[in-house]
């Protein structure tokens, strides 16, 4: 019987670049671009965007694709550096946020009862307060600066992922095969490591990647408002805040290119996360 089923299951042929391969390529492409951006900024020579008073407020040209600012700094390299900083901060804070979510979500699902109620209350509390206000409060409370931004973003982005993880853990814990394993005398450790983690991990990964764009935008937002990174760091939020002062003078490029670049990058994270979700979703096997 099984043989027949397998015998009738054959390679379907069709173009090499089928839907699934395309999705995989997009994901890999997205990750390569983002990682490249991050490394480029990290390894860049700061003299690239050092002040050059001989070239102040130049409109975009081949020498300066994004133009220069009032101190004669090259906006292209400054933007790249700013995006790189954003990715690093996003990575760190999304990672911390997702670990908080993983721990709270699992505790909530495994122990249930009062603990579940308390964690549920914390989730609601955190989601109920406007994000930006909470972020500003936390980053000021811990002393501002880069540490303030990272901590602020990290401890405000866990609630929705906590809910996802709680639901996934609860679902797999009540699955028949997990209950059978328990009756076969398997330890909690074995069940967690062999059944629960492999089930939850893909969901966690997607959640983590989808946290990035939020973290990055919020980092840019509080930096723009002046509560975040020190003014001398090349960060997109600071670039945009400075550009505000020159916009009325017709220096549109100061805000336009960095803004577009930030938007594109967050969109790219969204695309990678969404496509990864499609790839691990069993229903997508049909498309």
């Amino acid at each position, binding site marked *: *019987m*099984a043989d027949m*089923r*397998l015998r009738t*299951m054959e390679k379907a042929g069709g173009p090499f670049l089928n839907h699934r391969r395309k999705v995989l390529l997009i994901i890999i492409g997205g990750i390569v671009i983002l990682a490249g951006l991050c490394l480029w900024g990290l390894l860049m020579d700061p003299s690239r965007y050092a002040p050059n008073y001989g070239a102040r407020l130049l409109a975009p040209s081949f020498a300066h694709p994004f133009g220069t600012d009032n101190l004669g700094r090259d906006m292209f390299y400054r933007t790249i550096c700013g995006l790189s900083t954003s990715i690093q901060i996003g990575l760190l804070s999304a990672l911390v946020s997702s670990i908080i979510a993983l721990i709270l979500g699992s505790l909530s699902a495994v122990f249930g009862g009062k603990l579940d109620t308390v964690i549920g209350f914390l989730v609601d509390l955190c989601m109920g307060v406007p994000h930006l206000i909470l972020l500003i409060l936390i980053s000021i409370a811990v002393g501002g600066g880069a540490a303030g931004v990272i901590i602020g973003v990290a401890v405000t982005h866990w609630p929705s992922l906590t809910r996802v993880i709680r639901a996934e853990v609860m679902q797999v814990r009540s*699955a*028949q*095969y997990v*209950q*059978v*394993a328990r*009756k*076969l*005398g*398997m330890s909690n450790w074995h069940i967690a490591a062999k*059944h629960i983690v*492999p*089930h939850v991990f893909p969901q966690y990964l997607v959640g983590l990647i989808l946290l990035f764009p939020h973290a990055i935008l919020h980092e840019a937002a509080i930096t723009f408002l002046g509560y975040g990174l020190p003014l001398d760091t090349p960060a997109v939020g600071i670039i945009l805040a400075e550009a505000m002062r020159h916009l009325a003078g017709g220096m549109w490029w100061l805000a336009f290119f960095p803004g577009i670049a930030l938007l594109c990058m967050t969109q790219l994270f969204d695309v990678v996360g969404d496509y990864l979700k499609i790839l691990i979703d069993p229903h997508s096997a049909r498309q």
Partner: protein
Amino acid sequence: MAILEVKHVDFRYGSGPWILKDISFSVEEGERVAILGPSGYGKSTLAKVIAGYLKPAGGEILWEGKPLPATGFCPIQLIYQHPEKALNPRWKMKDSLEEAGVPSEEVLTEMGIQEKWYQRWPNELSGGELQRFCVARVLKPETRLLICDEMTTMLDAINQAHIWNFVLAYAKKHNMTLLAITHNRYLANQVATRILRIPELNHVEVDQSSL
């Protein structure tokens, strides 16, 4: 002495309607008992309560005169109606089969489990093949009572006969007690030494319109 005693067991989910009410019966060692009746009378719930998956709201279940041990390999094992739900879809068949140790050669041969199935995923085998794995992994000396909850309802008659023939032979040879839960009276007659009817066992009002 009765090996299993079910004493005045009640059950409901949370504060929902009663599903089981005042169920009492006992099973002797080596007996083959069938619980027979249509759906809607809580047969599957009763199976889960006896096997220790669910805690009764009232009454008690005694195994050799004592409550069932909470950890370790359970002497009461339960086979479900849907084998595909009882196997981790992310595991290859061999890993599921050997989760609690390798089954004996006798079981593997007689169940007709083929080695070429070992490296397959659950969705690549038929229901009958999957159910053989589920039965084989619990047929161990430590299993003293096997509860078969509509074990072969989803299978064709040939697979049904194959699995039951072996389970019956195994139970006789190893003095394993059987509790078969089914809606099929022919099946109950064929496998059991004693038949209990769930409508007489369960003292709960069943809404006839829901049947």
